[in-house]
């Protein structure tokens, strides 16, 4: 499948898809975040073109929507790979060898933070606390938590999902 150039993520029928998402949240209190979650689920990111449309529908301005989108690290401005590995970078995990673990994983994958493997399958993200400090260092792969993580275990799991 040819890769889609980034500027055409939001194409002509995207407007209809977006309108449908906005409509499902009509009348709801505080609809912005649920809409943004659905948009990210639909496009794998929050396309900039979508932000003025959402703003208009909700009686906001595009600056306000952008302020919210940029506030949350989980809202992406470009799509991630189909699989996402997140390594905890917070204090407890660092004290339990998180830095070394991160170095090993980066080396093993050949990518840095926020980058995607050359095959486009996996994106590596830092995260600040997964709430799993008792089992530090911790990680998360596709939403599944990994406690007492080590390089070998993570590499094995990553290999499974990339296969």
């Amino acid at each position, binding site marked *: 499948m040819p890769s889609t150039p980034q500027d055409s993520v939001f194409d002509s029928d995207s407007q209809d898809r977006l309108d449908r998402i906005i409509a499902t949240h009509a009348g709801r209190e505080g609809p912005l975040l649920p809409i943004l979650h659905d948009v990210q689920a639909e496009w794998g990111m929050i396309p*900039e073109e979508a*932000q*003025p449309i959402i703003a*208009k529908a909700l*009686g*906001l*301005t*595009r*600056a*306000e*929507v*952008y*302020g919210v989108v*940029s*506030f949350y690290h989980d809202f992406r*401005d470009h799509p991630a790979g189909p699989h996402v590995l997140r390594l905890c970078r917070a204090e407890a995990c660092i004290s339990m060898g998180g830095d070394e673990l991160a170095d090993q994983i980066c080396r093993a994958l050949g990518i840095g933070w926020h980058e995607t493997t050359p095959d486009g399958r996996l994106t590596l993200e830092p995260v600040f606390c997964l709430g799993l400090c008792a089992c530090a260092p911790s990680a998360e792969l596709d939403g599944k938590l990994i406690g007492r993580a080590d390089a070998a275990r993570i590499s094995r799991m990553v290999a499974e999902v990339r296969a």
Partner: protein
Amino acid sequence: MKDFIIPDRDMGTPASKSDVMVTLNVDGRQVTVPAGTSVMRAAAEAGIAVPKLCATDHLEAFGSCRLCVVQIDGMRGTPASCTTPVAEGMVVHTQTDEVAQIRRGVMELYISDHPLDCLTCAANGDCELQDMAGAVGLREVRYDAPKNHFAQRTATGPNPEYRPKDQSNPYFTFDPAKCIVCSRCVRACEDVQGTFALTIEGRGFDSRVSAGMGSDSFLSSDCVSCGACVQVCPTATLVENKVIEIGTPEHIVKTTCAYCGVGCSFDAHMRGEEVVRMVPSKGGKANHGHSCVKGRFAWGYATHRERILRPMVREKITDPWREVDWDEALDFAATRLRRAQDDHGKNAIGVITSSRCTNEETYLVQKLARAVFGNNNTDTCARVCHSPTGYGLGQAFGTSAGTHDFDSVEDTDLALVIGANPTDGHPVFASRLRKRMRQGAGLIVIDPRRIDLLETPHMGMGMHLPLRPGTNVAVLTSLAHVIVTEGLYDEDFIRSRCDWDEFRTYMDFAADPRHSPDEVEKLSCVPAGLIRQAARAYAAAPRASIYYGLGVTEHSQGSTTVMAIANLAMMTGNIGEPGTGVNPLRGQNNVQGSCDMGSFPHEFPGYRHVGDQATRELYERIWGVPLSDEPGLRIPNMFDAALAGNFRGLYCQGEDIVQSDPDTQHVTSALKAMDIVIVQDLFLNETSNYAHVLLPGSSFLEKDGTFTNAERRINMVRRCMTPKNGHADWEITQMLANRMGAGWTYTHPSEIMEEIALTTPSFAGVSFDLLDRVGSVQWPCNEAAPLGTPVMHLDGFVRGKGRFLHTEYVATEERSGPRFPLLLTTGRILSQYNVGAQTRRTENLAWHAEDVLEIHPSDAENRGVRQGDWVRVASRSGETTLRAHITDRVAPGVVYTTFHHPTNQVNVITTDNSDWATNCPEFKVTAVQVSPSNGPTDWQRDYRSHSDLARRIMQTAAE
């Protein structure tokens, strides 16, 4: 000297409006303040400055900078003084060892991410960060930050955190390197301006101020360049380019903006005779420290190179201009005016007063006509804008002006906006209305076009009645129909304030089925359901106000519409208390004043008829000459008389009638038929193409006087610099009058105001001394109301009982038909002002470089017109070309444009239809056809060539 005023001190947080008083102790001083006041403001009231960065009295407290922490007895920790309200008996310590240490620590962190280039910084000497570093005694910064936002390069290469300056806005620069992320700018954009163009992107260390989205610049964002962000920025992050260019100002002159009818008060920050920046005055009662792009930034025209600084004359309008001295120009003008009178009679000459000039100047020009010319041939541009307001409100209430002050909008529960576009025409008022809308007030807009007010962020209920141009009376009478048939009227109010029997007659009239929403839907295209909803909402709102503009008045039934508006307000009891009222949004800075000053041919100053013997005798006594009791010619009559050969000379001060009056070809033929046309203006304009004498005018920065805004507020205009042309406008009128034997001896505008006060009852108490003392007053200002009258008709109408006038809808003769199937209506845009003579000579062109024709997608498609195409717009009167902008803001069948640029000459196509009562032209409805075009019309080409010819100035040898 009273002109040199120290800037108002920033009290930290806005004043509380509570009438419950609270006494507390701050650093050993007792202070009594209204409940709800912040500790910070209370301290300021006691003369104690608490250090602060994110707080300013323009904005609600935010509590983010942590510099204003204090200690309060009995309270734990160190609360922020900006967000802590006062309490009875509170004991506050603003300076303790503990808070001193906290403040120094906080400042150290701020400064660790701030460049230390203070000496070469644009905010040097005017930087709150610098001041606070001094106030907290910062002596060292211990942190060597691993990352910063201000250095362009790090030891290893470009600094990824650094962002270059955003210089996209022509008036100010955004330098992210200087930003301390106090959010003042974002809050000003939201709370004060109501545009919500700014945000804080990211979070933590990545937090930055962003205009619009990631890819936007200030210019491409929603920013309307009001400058509120620049005004509140405590550092050099947002700073006027003029300050960067010139440096800090050294004195301040308080004056009044010369753009729209809001009449904002400004502090002109001067260096010598040069304006560095205009800052809206916090104490300005119309604007309370806010302004728009025009007032704050677009004053560069005053020193524009195209300004005419020497008088010029010529024999024929095809001759080139000859620069002459004042004596020769005035002699030439006076001789020709007198000759026209000798040859064609006393009534063969007249004047047009300016709504841009001061009250004093306008008074002199009409006095010139009445006392020196000996006729009443005086008129003003209000003829073409709000003359129906004067007539309609005069008939219904007894005064020819708006009923309320702008502050009243803070109390309104519902605003009915008719034929006005406040965000563009009256931006500062729009910001105040939007603020009220965010607090929950409803909005009903009756306008052919979906105006920006309907897209106010965070607004509550909004309703749009998109009527066909020309059907105002039908729709308003239909609203009345719903109110009377559903029994929604306020009987108590009507019985006590109006004539009940008269109302009963009106009720029968309005209740007739021909006014029912279903019938009116057929004429107006407004769905009947919407009319009913709007009527119910207006009647049900506890305090409903009406604001209207030229979309009401510039119609063949303009006066009837004004009366219909007055009827609605009276029948629902929406008159006489704050939050209600009928308020015309008047176009020009002093259009109210020019009407008050007797610019009309039938009225002396103060709206007293020339036939009224007592008034005439008063003026005859003061002026020492006999006066005519015959009303003079209105502007359109002057043109007609000129074409008939009876009207031969015109003195036109500060108005470009060729561009602003309807049916341009009629106007230009009339001017060509005159023997002497004297134009007094800052620039060569379209009218001066037909003039024989050009007297260079002076700008508002160069003279003393007063302007009267839309809320009847008389504001002082003060001279900031010497007139570049040598004389203020009032001096020029006096010199001309004296050449004609007047013998006037005014030495200062204050003497003219004394004469106005002496002869005009509603101005009896007004004097420059009073205005210097209290800032401004709203007329009537007399013995009964020595400080003026903010809200009129409080307990009774000026005329006694409010009057219900029947408002029968009569369709305009200007109807769309097969040849001209579309209806053209005209309006304004924010960045340009009126005919654009001033704003086109400023950087405001960045926002509106040309007039465009708004057309609905379906009408465009039918005609094969694409976005940006040149189109020909033709009416029965003429044709012009401009570019098309396809949008659904206008309904199918309606097209819309602005008239700011002379090359398009939209008024070539407007017709000579006018209001039945006042001759106010029907600018707002013209039947047109639109078709694709390749370029300018023949008329545009001919006009250009005459214009080029008429603007030649003969090169004179240096003396």
